């Protein structure tokens, strides 16, 4: 019985573990690419959670066959996650563009190095430049 219980709740436990692993990567790793990968792990753990909730045991994919008494899985979570996957890739692309620009401007994509740069007032130059041009315009 207890083995059965673990198997039936295994998906939820794993989803939570993956979510926390993603969160840990986002908080503690300093590399922006690794942070983005952590973010996508976090995202897809939520996807797996939704699809797990939509599963009906003994069911088939929700494509109507016309055969009587067929059990179908819940189509609604599938629709929601279909939208979420595409949006997730769009946000990933935007994040990657930002990372490439950061590398171009500061020659580093490690968060602690960028913070150190900020402490040394390395970022001040650009702000002054902008404000000077602003006043000129």
């Amino acid at each position, binding site marked *: 019985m207890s083995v059965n219980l673990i198997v039936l709740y295994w998906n939820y436990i794993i989803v939570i573990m993956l979510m926390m692993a993603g969160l*840990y990567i986002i908080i503690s790793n300093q*590399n922006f690419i690794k942070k983005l990968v952590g973010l996508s792990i976090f995202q897809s753990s939520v996807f797996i959670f939704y699809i797990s909730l*939509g599963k009906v*045991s003994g069911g088939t994919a929700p494509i109507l066959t016309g055969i009587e008494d067929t059990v179908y899985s819940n189509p609604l979570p599938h629709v929601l996650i279909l939208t979420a996957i595409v949006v*997730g890739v769009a946000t*990933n692309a*935007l994040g990657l563009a930002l*990372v490439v620009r950061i590398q171009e401007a500061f020659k580093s994509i490690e968060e*602690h190095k960028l913070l150190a740069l900020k402490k040394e007032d390395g970022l001040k130059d650009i702000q002054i430049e902008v404000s000077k041009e602003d006043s000129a315009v």
Partner: protein
Amino acid sequence: MIELWVNVFLVSLLVIITFYIMRLRRLIGIVALSGAYSLTAAAIFVNMDAVDVAFTEAAVGSGISTILFLAALRYLPVEEAHETRYPVWSLFLCGIVGLMLIIAAFALPEFGDPNAPAHLHVAPRYIEESYPLFHIPNVVTNVLASYRGFDTLGETVVVFTAGLGVIILLTGSTLSMRFKQTATSSDNQTAKSDEETRDA
């Protein structure tokens, strides 16, 4: 029953992949593993009857996303510095939150329970009424395009906005970039005029 055990095996595989993503330092390896993660997730979706989600994840999550990462890696350093910040505190935080979520998860309906509240509200209506109304056998496509068309339109707007953002960031026509360019070009001009005066 075999479906259930395949599912247990596949989701456990995801944990192993995530563990190696956390340990690895070479960025290209991390990106390759995240592609493998997406492909395994697609297999899980097929096993859980979500075929539409599975092929979207395989094409978009495992394909396009990995290509985007590889394209970005061309401009980035090969390895990460592997400096972790507050590892103990973040582990503590994630542990506490994970523990609370796992305790809460046991209040959820069992995996595959046909009497779960999620299956009793609108899902039967979609399955029974959508074909006579719209004559599309695939219920997921039907709900996506017919019932939730505005949702899909919103998604398209989000993707369009993200694309615009990427183009603006990469072609460098942001405000500060333009100021920087004008500043450097004027510097070059002054340098050139200096040279000319020196030649004269």
